């Protein structure tokens, strides 16, 4: 690359990155301002005295601790369920031969074409009939598995040599022990991708928790934060503080496992 090209490319990349990062830094700055500063007409990028107390105030003004617990339980529970079920189902479709195998696999893959908005109304009615609305059951059960995770795990398990599995059979291991001790350890990289993806997207999920909860203390962070903002639309410093807290796990995951994310997204693009 000659010099002018290099300078142009760097300039464009710096501008683009600044456009994505600066608004998020501004969110942090906002969370450290006083209420007056957020409402004044002057541009405050760096607050004169950072108001760390905003974070404590947030927990007094809204049941933010509940929001955090709810989000952790829901996103964590769903992630665990995916890690438990998706590889097992993927293994069966990769390595077993049984009647209706292809039909059943197609039926599971077809669920990828069924978006949440189609399921939303019947699921709401179902949860209402079960008396589960406004509970963890309603937030978790519709997302225990998904076609994408099963597909990903099947793709990953297919290249595991059959000889390895047969060796386990010859040694008299039970079918579940073969899965648990021989197959599952081979899938660690895929499990990491699956776990990180599932957690991040469930942590961010907005529509279903909004539909399925009604009491304030059952809300997850995105829903709790949005409704808090609607009720207290002048308390921008607190909304920003909540946004920063919501963003912390995402930031940690990104910094420590960017590799997995990039590889995982690339994987979803493969066909």
């Amino acid at each position, binding site marked *: 690359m000659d010099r002018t090209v290099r300078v142009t490319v760097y300039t464009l*990349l710096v501008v*683009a*990155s600044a456009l*994505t*990062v600066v*608004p*998020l830094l501004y*969110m942090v700055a*906002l969370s450290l301002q006083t209420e007056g500063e957020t409402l004044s*007409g002057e*541009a405050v*990028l760096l607050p004169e005295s950072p108001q760390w107390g905003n974070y404590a105030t947030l927990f007094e003004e809204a049941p933010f601790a509940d929001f955090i617990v709810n989000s952790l339980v829901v996103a964590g529970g769903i992630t665990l369920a995916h890690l438990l*079920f998706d590889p*097992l189902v993927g293994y*069966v479709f990769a*390595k*077993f*031969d*049984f*009647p209706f195998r292809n039909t*059943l696999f197609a*039926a*599971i893959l077809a*669920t990828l*074409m*069924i*978006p*949440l*908005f*189609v*399921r939303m109304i019947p699921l709401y009615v179902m949860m209402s009939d079960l008396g589960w609305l406004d509970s963890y059951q309603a937030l978790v*059960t519709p997302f*225990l*598995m998904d076609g994408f995770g099963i597909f990903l795990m099947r793709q990953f398990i*297919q290249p595991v040599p059959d*000889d390895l599995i*047969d060796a386990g*059979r010859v040694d008299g291991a039970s079918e579940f022990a073969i899965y648990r001790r021989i197959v599952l350890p081979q899938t660690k990289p895929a499990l990491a991708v699956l776990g990180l993806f599932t957690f991040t997207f469930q942590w*961010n999920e*907005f*529509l279903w928790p909004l*539909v399925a909860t009604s009491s304030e203390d059952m809300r997850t*962070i*995105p829903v709790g*934060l*949005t409704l808090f903002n609607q009720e207290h639309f002048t308390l*921008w410093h607190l*909304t920003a503080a909540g*946004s920063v807290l*919501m*963003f912390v796990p*995402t*930031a940690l995951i*990104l910094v420590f496992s960017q590799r997995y*994310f*990039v590889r995982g*997204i*690339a994987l979803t*693009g493969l*066909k």
Partner: protein
Amino acid sequence: MPSKTTERAPAERPGRGPHRRGPFARGPFGRGPLTLRARRARTAYLFLAPALLFFAVFYYVPIADVVHTSLHTGPRADEFDGLGNYVDAFDDPAARNSFVVTLLFTVGTTVGAIVLGLGLALLVNRPLRGRALFRLALLVPYLTSVAVVGLLWRNILDPQLGILNRMLREFDLPTQQWLNTAPLTTLVVITLWQISGYTMILFLAGLQGIPEVYYEAAYLDGAGSRQRFWRITLPLLAPTTLFVAVMAVISGLQAFGQAYIITNGGPADSTDLYVFHLFNVAFRSRDFGYSSALSVLLLIVIMVFTALQMRAGRRREVRY
């Protein structure tokens, strides 16, 4: 057991384990081949049982239910009305408006996500120092919740207290009321801010899949960089572009949070995104019959779109 169990799989079919061939084909424990196969099938179904139950209860029953409900009317959606809700949907100016709004939004986000994603991928694909850091910075918004993104941009764009207008005022430039003068465009731009890093990663994977030899050959033949882009990069990226387009269309048609959080559908329903409209009909007006019909209609649109894009893409595939 259905008769399929008795069919023996052809031994040479790839992808099937060797355990049904070779010395142990008749079963290592003195059992016949049928018993072994049946036992394996039983294990398979045992492992699959929770998944089959799950997908039936949480996907297929709801689909049947939503179609059933869409044929009913009344406050409890229990009076049969045939296709009445569907006829209403086509006559309903509010539903038609929200469909048009959503189409415009989807076209904007899809075209934008392809152009920006490809542009960024071409930049990041160069051998640069610090490109992992750029990639990380550009990917961050995609992994941020639509709630955080929406609230942040609502604050930034606020006509009075938003930082953008404050800065314009500081430089004595005219201030703007983005969410009033160009609300839909503003939502498209915010959405592009969020998703372009994701499409960049998809294009990056596509670019890395193009063999270097094509570029070398083109270089030797005297092709300039512009020619190499239009004649090699773009045609060979077609499968990636198709995938990005399908993903962007599907998610654009389903956008919800932007309208709920940033504009509340306004001003004057100009950002009344379809799923937001559907959400309001279902959970604010409590009309489950009509909202079910609306959701079935969008599902049909999404499926037709996807099928058309796939077919168009298959015809245009390029090989060298």
